[in-house]
């Protein structure tokens, strides 16, 4: 009973931890499936988080905060597109630049505007996305398994959590069942084929990059106005890169991307749960080591367990019309 409760709790928090990864991972999926590598997921998330925190604090509305986060993130996504699609610049360099701009800009603007050490003001509950309790969640809490899953794993998340998991089947459907998806995947594999079919390669890639921006905005907003109550300097803490790892781990497919993000979420949840708890035979593991576990596992998983991951063929290559 106690064990089940623990597992339910860890699962619930694993879901919450995996949400920003999932948004960012799907964001990267749109972009990279269309042939635009995006190492700037981290930066766009950070911009999104900062904008959401700022706008929510100023307007008092979480929804406006979310909208602003999406707009700001899309702006930077289009900037990446302008550099790497229109001007055929190096996609890695452009992505890294966006990460640097985001890190510097959010810290600087935060300090200048609010003067509380680079943070945005603490948000009240009305200014953030709060958990939504499902009907009868409290009443069912004591029923083993079914009740626990219902009340602790499924119920009690904020709306963005549900949005993230709804985005998975939606992305799958868009990618594999619609014209948009067919063209998006084609443009990442062989842009010349798309061009000769009379479709604009640049247009498709911009559309993909914009989708990426929208989802990064969601990821950022989740961090600052749903999971926390305000923006904190560098609050993404490498999640954009973990999302990228999950994307490779999932071989650029939406459903496996969800599982990969959940896996990283579970690792996060466990590492927090085990902080300060003695492990049989080892004793208390230093907090720093526990926090490093997800990253260490990322390296191990990527090095040995994903097998041969074939990236979209035209990934990273700007399209130049020839002949």
């Amino acid at each position: 009973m106690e064990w089940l409760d623990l597992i339910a709790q860890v699962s619930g928090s694993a879901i919450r931890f995996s949400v920003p990864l999932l948004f960012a991972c799907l964001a990267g999926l749109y972009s990279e499936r269309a042939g635009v590598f995006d190492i700037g997921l981290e930066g766009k998330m950070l911009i999104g988080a900062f904008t959401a925190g700022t706008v929510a604090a100023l307007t008092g509305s979480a929804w406006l905060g979310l909208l602003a986060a999406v707009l700001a993130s899309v702006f930077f996504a289009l900037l990446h597109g302008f550099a790497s699609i229109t001007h055929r610049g190096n996609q890695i360099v452009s992505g890294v630049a966006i990460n640097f701009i985001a890190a510097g800009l959010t810290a600087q603007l935060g300090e200048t505007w609010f003067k509380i050490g680079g943070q945005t003001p603490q948000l009240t509950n009305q200014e953030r996305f709060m958990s939504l309790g499902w009907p009868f969640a409290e009443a069912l809490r004591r029923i083993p398994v079914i009740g626990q899953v219902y009340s602790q794993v499924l119920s009690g998340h904020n709306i963005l959590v549900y949005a993230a998991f709804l985005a998975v089947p939606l992305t799958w459907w868009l990618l594999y069942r619609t014209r948009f998806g067919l063209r998006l995947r084609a443009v990442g594999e062989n842009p010349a084929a798309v061009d000769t079919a009379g479709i604009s390669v640049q247009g498709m890639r911009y559309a993909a990059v914009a989708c990426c921006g929208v989802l990064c905005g969601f990821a950022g907003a989740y961090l600052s106005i749903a999971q926390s109550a305000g923006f904190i300097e560098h609050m993404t803490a490498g999640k954009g890169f973990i999302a990228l790892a999950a994307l490779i781990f999932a071989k650029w497919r939406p459903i496996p991307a969800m599982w990969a993000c959940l896996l990283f979420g579970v690792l996060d949840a466990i590492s927090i749960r085990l902080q300060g708890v003695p492990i049989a035979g080892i004793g208390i593991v230093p907090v720093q080591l526990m926090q490093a576990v997800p990253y260490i596992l990322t390296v191990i998983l990527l090095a040995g367990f994903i097998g041969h991951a074939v990236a979209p063929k035209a990934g990273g290559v700007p399209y130049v019309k020839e002949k």
Partner: protein
Amino acid sequence: MTSTKAMAVPPAIALAHIDKRFGPVHANKDISLEIEKGTIHGIVGENGAGKSTLMSILFGFYQADSGEIRVDGKETHIASPTDAIRAGIGMVHQHFMLVGKFTVLENIVLGAEGGFVLNSGLAKARRELERLEKDYGLQVDPDAVIDDLPVGLQQRVEILKALYRGAEVLILDEPTGVLTPNEAEHLFRILKQLKAQGKTIVFITHKLKEIMAVTDRVSVMRRGEMVATVETAATSPEHLAELMVGRRVLLRVVKSEREPERSVLEVKNLVVKDAAGTAKVDGVSFIVRAGEIVGIAGVAGNGQSELLEAITGIRPPFSGEILLNGKPLPCDPAEARAQKLAHVPEDRHRLGIVTSFDACENVILGYHGDELYQKGIFQDRRAIRSDTEKKMRDFDVRPQDPYLRLGLFSGGNQQKIVLAREIEQDPDLLIVGQPTRGVDIGAIEFIHNRLIAMRERGKAVLLVSVELDEIRGLADRVLVMCGGASPANARRRRPRSRSAS
């Protein structure tokens, strides 16, 4: 179906005074061309003659600087491939415009999906595809993934793609370059079938034999100009070659009778396996003697590449012996070079040259440690430059600029640089793979003569080529490889002439 005479019908395509410049390059000079409905019209010319540019203008990839296009007698503005498709023009590109991971069906509907949700569009496309397959005899499994299909079938998908979009005029750009002789034969049958159904076909190639085999009329381009349009029946390969190059071209190789001397290369029971452990070369034995050219023929993929790689030390043999001048040849390309073996690889881009390096650097590749090129611990730039200039002169490489990046030379000139590098080392054994792949007709003549000259100087030459005519014309003896083995090892009775490729 058309009972009226062809003359009464306006031409399917009429190009008038098409002119196109790319910066300083005048790619198309005032070109006019009429292509009659229901015919197969060939366009020949050397690389860079402007055939591809002209067709790209017709397909909307480029805009002409001036001139007009008429389709079925109507002036048509073609600003993009979409416009071309709408005007009923389809193109089968030299490099297929297919998405390798998609199925045949997905590739065919790409760009003509018929609605945002794919389902209904795909079902309709499947029915339409069945009809096309029946009408034109173009069978292909709609659910097969492109990457799993042989190139011949991939090309068929390209043709189906154009027909699906309602193409009445089909442009094929160098369609046989990637095909085996059998597949090419099959393609020609398909083209004739399409013609019988009233389609118009524009066939771009530099292979004169194919022009003679399938076309009704042929237009010749040279240096951006349309030189002539003639009835195929009223011309000959020699005449076309002369029009293409602008001078008389000897399509025959002249060779003296010559008795081969001592053996230079001996291969005994050679077995070469690939990474998966399959024997690609399975117990092959042969010798190559000084003063003879031994040709290895056979459809590509029957172990020729692996055989060459084993002899030149790129791929370790599984078993068997390779002797050069009686001594065992170690598996090491540098050591092979030191023992006077020179190699002109089949795939020059992968193994022969570095396209981003200039001509000088490419000329010394592999021999960059030679005494000649050293000055203390530095390279002797001046010596390298003068050596490169000499080689470029001797092998008629154009432009004669030792500091030009190799990627900017034409295929023929790149190949001449590789040949110059290898032949000028004065090797005992020259191994040449596909010496004229992607090479112009004028350069082919030059390269063939150089190979013959090696033979006349008493050197041994091992030649691998998929061009049967090339093997027949050059080789004294021919080995045929099939499934890794060489069942036939025929002695040629006497040198014979060959016809144009």
